[in-house]
């Protein structure tokens, strides 16, 4: 393993990065109230760069190989978008600058919102939420204020058991009470059950389309109709929008509120966990509730509109993750209408192709056709004492990344696989053949899987010990175990 930057940076010298103070006469010592040093490293530039290059070499990443994490849409991140987003004209703007000085930025926001409306069929978007979960929360706030405005006391949000964990969590944070309903044996929402659950207390029905099994809700029209009849709203988690581009527009089929993840569908990088961007879109009757400020056309140019007394207010200090918008907008421009449709077509073809191959060796609880992803199960390996974790870890030994595991919860030993459209057939074939090899190893020599991984920078890590007494902070100034 690598020593920490603190160990490497003990008793060294940093370079000189900023000029000498050109106000040496200013006495500011009486401001100083901190006792002692902060405890930051002192390290030269070469060793600093080596440290991070060494850390980098211990990461799996898209530019290394396929990243079949279900529900994460790990597609290629175009390098040109990184270059464009690095332009001073974007990175050098203070959010409080005069509108005249940021016309290009406002135009980009305006165009991106318009494009998202066209793609999803919603009436308006706000780019302020900075992640999917943030978008969900924003959506819940909109529903909350919508019903409060109408004097309706609706406090229940219905969520299918297949939903992502952020959904019920967002519901609770917004003060609603989540109600979980079971999926039927096809892995879909059961309209009958829903029918029974919705009532005058129901504020929102929150679904994911396609759902987390990668299945399109056959009965979606009826489902929406049921919810609307009860006077409730339908929220769609659009994390899986990569399956619907140019094929289905949620706004046109009656979805009231939704979010999309620019860091999934629109090819912006995940950055090892963020920053993302989770724009929220609504239909006409909810537009006034969107966060402020909104970007509007004004005269020849663009301006901020800060006032909307129905608005839920703000969910971010400024306008959201602007720098992420730049990359997503560039991506949409590159794809164009035909290109976006091709994205979903290829995502769906890849997923179905891979499912048909993986299905030979792993259990597929809900047979296809699937949309952009599918969920396999390691259930049939349990007999050999092999768990899905073992399969996942063994994949690492083959230089591949594992699928999402143990989610959704309704599939035992779940392996959630999303190949995405940017992977070539040969890559899928390789992944499938490794999955096959592993299923054979599981039967013939399960120990290999229990021992896996062996080729990685570290082997299986003791998570229990970490949870028992977490070491969240480097203690020593230097030294420590090599």
């Amino acid at each position, binding site marked *: 393993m690598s020593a920490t930057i603190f160990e490497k940076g003990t008793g060294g010298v940093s370079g000189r990065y900023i000029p000498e103070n050109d106000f040496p006469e200013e006495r500011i010592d009486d401001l100083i109230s*901190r006792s002692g040093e902060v405890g930051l490293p002192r390290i030269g530039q070469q060793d600093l760069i080596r440290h991070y290059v060494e850390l980098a070499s211990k990461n799996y990443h898209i530019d290394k190989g396929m990243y079949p994490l279900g529900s994460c849409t790990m597609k290629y991140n175009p390098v040109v978008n990184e270059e464009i987003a690095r332009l*001073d004209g974007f990175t050098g703007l203070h959010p409080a600058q005069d509108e005249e000085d940021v016309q290009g930025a406002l135009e980009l926001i305006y165009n991106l919102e318009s494009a998202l409306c066209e793609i999803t069929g919603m009436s308006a978007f706000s780019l302020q939420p900075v992640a999917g979960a*943030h978008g969900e929360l924003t959506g819940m706030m909109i529903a909350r204020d919508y019903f409060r405005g109408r004097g309706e006391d609706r406090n229940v949000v219905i969520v299918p058991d297949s939903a992502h964990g952020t959904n019920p969590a967002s519901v609770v944070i917004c003060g609603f009470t989540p109600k979980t309903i079971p999926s039927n044996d096809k892995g879909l929402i059961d309209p009958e059950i829903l029918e029974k659950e919705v009532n005058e207390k129901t504020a929102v029905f929150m679904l994911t389309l396609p759902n987390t099994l990668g299945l399109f809700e056959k009965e979606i029209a009826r489902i929406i109709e049921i919810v609307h009849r009860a006077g409730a709203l339908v929220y769609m988690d659009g994390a899986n929008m990569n399956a619907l581009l140019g094929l289905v527009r949620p706004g*046109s089929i009656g979805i009231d509120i939704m979010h999309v993840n620019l860091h999934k569908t629109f090819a912006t990088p995940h950055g090892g966990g963020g920053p993302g961007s989770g724009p929220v879109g609504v239909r006409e009757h909810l537009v006034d509730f969107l966060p402020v400020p909104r970007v509007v056309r004004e005269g020849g140019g663009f301006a901020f509109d800060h006032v909307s007394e129905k608005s839920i207010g703000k969910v971010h200090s400024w306008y959201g993750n602007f720098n992420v918008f730049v990359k997503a907008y560039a991506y949409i421009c590159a794809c164009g209408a035909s290109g976006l449709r091709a994205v979903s077509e290829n995502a769906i073809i890849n997923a179905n192709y891979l499912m048909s191959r993986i299905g030979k060796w792993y259990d597929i609880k809900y047979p296809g056709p699937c949309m952009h992803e599918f969920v396999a199960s390691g259930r049939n390996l349990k007999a050999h004492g092999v768990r899905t974790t073992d399969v996942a870890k063994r994949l690492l030994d083959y230089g591949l990344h594992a699928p999402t595991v143990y989610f959704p919860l309704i599939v035992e030993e779940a392996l959630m696989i999303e190949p995405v459209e940017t992977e070539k057939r040969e890559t899928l074939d390789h992944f499938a053949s490794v999955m096959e090899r592993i299923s054979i190893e599981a039967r013939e020599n399960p120990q290999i899987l229990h021992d896996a991984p062996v080729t990685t920078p570290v082997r299986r890590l003791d998570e229990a010990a970490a949870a028992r007494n977490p070491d969240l902070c480097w203690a020593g100034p230097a030294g420590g175990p090599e």
Partner: protein
Amino acid sequence: MSFIQNTDSDREEMLRATGVSSFEQLLSPVDPALRVKGDLKLGRPMSETEVRSHVGAMASRNRPAGSLASFLGGGIYDRFIPATVRYVLSRSEFYTSYTPYQAEVSQGTLQAIYEYQTMIARLTAMDAANASMYDAATSLAEAMFMACSIKRSDRILVPAALSTRVRAVLESYAAGRRIRIEEVPWTDEGTMDLGRAEELFSEKASALVMANPNYFGMIEDAARISDLAHSKGALLVALVDPVSLALLSPPGEYGADIAVGEGQSLGIPQSFGGPLLGFMAARQEYIRKCPGRLISATTDIDGKRGYVMTLQTREQHIRREKATSNICSNEGLCALSAAVYLSTMGEDGFREVARQSAAKSHALYRLLSGVEGCVMPFGDNFFQEFVVRMPGSSESFLSQARAEGILGGIPLSGDYPLLGGDAILVAVTEKRTRAEIEKYGDIAAGKGGGR
């Protein structure tokens, strides 16, 4: 420009292998009535050349910091960023990787974030920090939730001298759970009115929020505020500026329970306000209540040191509706920027950044004190930012300054009517030069247009 690598024949063969004759067959679950008719109205695909010039043209319709001397602050600052930060962030091992769910092949990200947590904990002098939040405002909102669940009361006190944007986020987060937010006014010195705070504590509150420096840039009497909060059985939540902590007593020193703040100053470009970096640190006893990801050191089965995400039972993907928060993706790459920034500048360089920001802002303060009609209502006990009332109207001053390539400050009148008509908030970072600062003074003194 397409990033799809399959060819038509690939697709045909794959469809055949899948056992269908056409793509349409795969869409059988989708009721045709729900399908999009025809093409989306988004225009034709652009080549890389066209994308670059189309989007690049938008960039050139902005006037970035590089072309102007910025005295804007209010949470976002124009600071020097060393090349090392851009270099590390340009490595796709970091920016194209996902959340480190498979720890064995994510040690790079995990160790870097562990080191970031350590730096934040050291800056704030708190026991531990998390792996990042969306921004300062949402960090504070999450701290509010923490405090309310720890202290079992849905009432918190916040300073009136708080960013109205942060305040707005608090409100929208609070509304769902009907948390009551009440305001502690500021004194003539522009700091928290402890008398009023005391009165407001006549009713139970979970937390007293202190912004230090506060939105007007003024340095609070943190120790006394901390004592008050604790004496009233409330938590002290400190909203702090990370650069100020190189000089000012850190939250851990005056007993804050939770410390949050905006990390943009730590090597992250202004980028029109996003992405930002919300940081959160807490005392040991509250760690298991805190939101978001936590990275812990541990060992692998061979006894080798390594890193993992820990205490995930707080998080939504395990705990769902019982989670401490709904946060999933955070601002990981910005946390990495902060770690690279702080390691690059180092103990001495970082302190120098703080010293120069303080020295230069006080230099401008003195300059303006000498200008007929310039009023600084709150005195000079500030770190790097202060409030000034201009002789004429703030609009006319700001627009003249802009004409001369200077972003003069953020108008406060709209948001803080109590400050009176023409107050603006002026920030001076280490990046500002003597020439720029003197020019600012000249313009304020009506001696602009020079040079």
